[in-house]
């Protein structure tokens, strides 16, 4: 049995207590996307600004949720800020693969992620702090907490692409 320490690594609690990039951005110019975890009620609002070079020039996170969803959002904001949209999407894919081991067994979001070998595909992507969330896969119902912000980010990118 996985213990609480596997889930609540210190760095996670730190991001939860002191979330980075918390707040709002003015819309427009920023884009605003809301995400829900239908099971527990967690809500994430992603505000995102992209510049003419396709860079994520700014990102802010709103909403409420558990330590896992909030810390994941906080770390995400740091990981993608200043990156190109393409890079941010790659990081998203890498993170979702990290989380995917049980996702198909908790159902509901239509994700078709499979238990790929993370290290092989993503060896060149550095998830940094985010790897602290790896322990979440041992708690299947919490995976959706960890991926909520990322799904919302993907949706935001999709909407931005459609708009332009």
């Amino acid at each position: 049995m996985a213990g609480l320490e596997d889930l609540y690594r210190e760095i996670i609690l730190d991001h939860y207590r002191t979330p980075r990039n918390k707040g709002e951005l003015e819309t427009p110019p920023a884009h605003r996307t809301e995400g829900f975890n239908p099971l527990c009620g967690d809500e994430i609002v992603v505000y995102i600004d992209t510049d003419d070079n396709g860079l994520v020039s700014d990102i802010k996170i709103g909403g409420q949720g558990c330590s896992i969803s909030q810390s994941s959002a906080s770390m995400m904001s740091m990981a993608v800020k200043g990156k190109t949209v393409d890079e941010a999407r790659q990081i998203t894919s890498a993170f979702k693969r990290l989380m995917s081991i049980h996702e198909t067994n908790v159902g509901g979001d239509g994700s078709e992620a499979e238990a790929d070998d993370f290290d092989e595909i993503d060896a060149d992507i550095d998830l940094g702090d985010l790897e602290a969330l790896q322990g979440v896969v041992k708690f299947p119902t919490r995976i959706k907490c960890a991926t909520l912000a990322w799904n919302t980010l993907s949706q935001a990118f999709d909407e931005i692409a459609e708009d332009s």
Partner: protein
Amino acid sequence: MSTPTLDVAAIRKDFPILSQVQDGKRLVFLDSAASSQHPTQVLDAMNDIYLHSYANVHRGVYQLAERATSAYESARDSVARFIGAPDPNEVIFTKNATEAINLVAQSWGRQNLKPGDAIVLTLMEHHANIVPWQMIAAELDCEIRWVPVTDEGELDLTDLDQLLDGAKVFAFTSMSNVLGTINPVARLTQAARAAGAISVVDACQSVPHFSTDVAELGADFIAFSAHKMLGPSGIGVLWGKKDLLDAMPPFLGGGGMILNVTTEGFTADGVPGKFEAGTPPIVEAVGLGAAVDYLENIGMDLIRQHEVELTAYAMRTLTERVGDDLLIMGPSEPAARGGVLSLSLADVHAHDVSQVLDEHAVCIRPGHHCAKPLMRRFDVNATARASVYIYNDIDDIDALADALVAARDFFSL
């Protein structure tokens, strides 16, 4: 004490799942408001059908089919008796309470609602008693009005008459699955009747816990699920007044709900058949019948008394042990509420609370409890909900208190 009390130790013997040990700890199941556990009597009744008398119902002449049919229909009789229904044919078996409410919203609604008509709901409804009405309201262009909720977690009935003025439907819960609040059902159904509206009572949280008499409640429809009252998954109940049910068009079409079918069209059967299209939840009905027998055997009044006592003990103990960090939503008077405690532990999120509690083998439920409008009313996005039933005792409450203290300490407030 000379008043009888519930013999929980004896009851627990009927629930093998509760003697489970999780990581060396006694399993403490406090999530019966989501779904309850099953006594062997219920499982045996279902196994008995599968092992000796299984066949499709209503259509066979052979003995297995007769036994299965009679077991299925006896379950209807038991449920009718349990809720004081004057006629067993008023008891419709659905797949869950949610389907029961959708049935009313769609079948009664499409026949009786017109653009501009008002449907009155309360802010403490479960999504099962909101979304079906929003769907039909959107389809038929009806208005939805909301009965507000006070800070104490009770319905604010100040403007009820205005809200009901000209309304066609008043749908409300008999007991909040979040706050534990017990609503004055008879008073509300009477107000609906006075306003010319039908009353639809979501009785999911009351039928399992107190004695129910549809005549006393004065409702037109009530809905509940077997899985919250010791019965199996896969079956719920709609009870409705015979004349209303008789006048309603069918909901789902198929075998078992027709008198005749030609290439030109079909003629619907009477109730309950009309609303039970396809092969019904045969064995599940038998399980529900056995659950009802089990509950009646204990006595609903004794069950209610036990839950009030346990709730009082819990409110006292949790407040003492966890102190000001803990907020218990809903009415402060145990006798005015059911055995459902929605907790907020300072700024530890309910999801995290539950996770720590699971380490202590304490099973509670975090989340919005399918009552998002209510959560928004209280400006929370999740609560940690503990709920009790006949098999819970003060040891369970003590374990909950211990675990909450541990959770608080883990997140070192």
